[in-house]
């Protein structure tokens, strides 16, 4: 019975019918990739214990495996689901960073859980798509120093002539300080010498809010 049910559910999934699947059907589908027997029974046990896939994915995998009689491989698979979203945000190449809100959202995700000042630079292509993002400097919880050489090197190595600066205020909100503005001016002036455009500077606060200096202060800061 399970084999036929799984085949039917997979066909529905492959034809784009995910939304109409019930929570139980989704759990059965998920388990079909890592369990070889009693799939329906195990799906029912998981849903009885945790209520839905989301709560099961927040459980400790070793406890979930033991308490619901599934393999540790299955428990890891379920546990991976919420990690995907975070991983996607941090590692997405090709992501479009053409608007203030996209830039703020990208860097707010990037800095989740970060407790020290870090300067991250994003290198973009001409269509404002992310080529690469990397940490260029790290400081204490209140201060970060940076190297214009390293910023320039990063841009050049990634064949980019457009960059976005960002840093986090791990102990305070995202309001730009006078030092933040001076630093931005200094980097913009330096990068002009080698025809690299600094498109924006995003500051992320300890509460996860973000500010775009281009949006807040104006494009004149970046000329």
């Amino acid at each position, binding site marked *: 019975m399970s084999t036929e049910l799984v085949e039917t559910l997979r066909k529905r999934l492959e034809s784009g019918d995910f939304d109409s699947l019930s929570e139980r059907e989704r759990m059965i589908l998920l388990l079909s990739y890592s369990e070889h027997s009693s799939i329906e029974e195990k799906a029912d046990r998981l849903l009885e214990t945790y209520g839905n896939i989301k709560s099961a994915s*927040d459980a400790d995998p070793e406890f979930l495996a033991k*308490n619901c009689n599934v393999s540790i491989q299955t428990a*890891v698979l379920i546990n991976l689901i919420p990690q*995907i979203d975070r991983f996607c945000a941090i*590692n997405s*190449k090709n992501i479009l960073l053409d608007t203030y809100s996209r830039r703020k959202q990208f860097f707010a995700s990037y800095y989740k859980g970060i407790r020290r000042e870090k300067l991250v630079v994003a290198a973009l292509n001409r269509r404002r798509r992310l080529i690469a993002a990397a940490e260029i400097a790290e400081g204490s919880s209140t201060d970060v120093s940076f190297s214009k050489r390293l910023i320039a090197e990063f841009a050049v190595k990634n064949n980019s002539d457009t960059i976005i600066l960002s840093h986090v205020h791990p102990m305070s909100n995202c309001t730009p300080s006078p030092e933040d503005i001076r630093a931005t001016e200094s980097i913009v002036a330096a990068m002009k010498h080698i025809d690299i455009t600094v498109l924006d500077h995003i500051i992320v606060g300890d509460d996860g809010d973000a500010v775009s200096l281009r949006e807040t202060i104006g494009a004149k800061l970046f000329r």
Partner: protein
Amino acid sequence: MSENGLHSGHRERLRQRYLESGTENLCEHEFLELLLFYALPRINTNEISHLLTDRFGSLKNVLDAPVEQLTEVKGIGKTAAGFLKLMGELRKDSGYSGKDALHLSTYELASQWFLDYFKGNNSELYLIIGTTSGIRPQVRFSFTPDMIRNHQLDLKRIALMLLKSGSERMFLGINHPSDDFYPIERDYLITRNIADAIEPIGIYLTDTMICKGEKIFSFRQNGSFSFREMR
């Protein structure tokens, strides 16, 4: 050692790395490889993960790609494409973006967050959320009443998980689908145990919230934190 043995050892080591330190030390193609283990149990998934990220640009794009485009990649058949599609859909409801990224800085926001999380869930369940000082969710950990009864709840492990995520505060949410939504003895006990075990390292329990359907009971609002110093 056979080729299958080599792959199997590699797979177990990658899974073990994930269990020990999460996604912290995984690069994008290793994460995709870890996922592909499930769809392609007998094949070396390293090359295929590279082919996918080269074709679509990112893990996110791979998981958002339609099945027919995924099957154009060498080594990806309908089964693997369907699996990637499934993971892409499931992650939309489970991640840390969208409404999960909201602050829990007021009683209204925090209570709505828990009501949304437990909506439609008919299981008795506990949930610890670690948040930043700005009350932004960083990590979640769910556990069951059976784990409490059987002394399986490892508070030291939870403390380490909170520390690793950079959390500075935590909330405890409780789903009472069948009991009354007022706290029962076990709720007071677990609140006290969690606070006593974890607060000494500087991560403070901001509130315990009990949900039943659309009703919510906040320990802080109702003075039920009086057994400990309020923060």
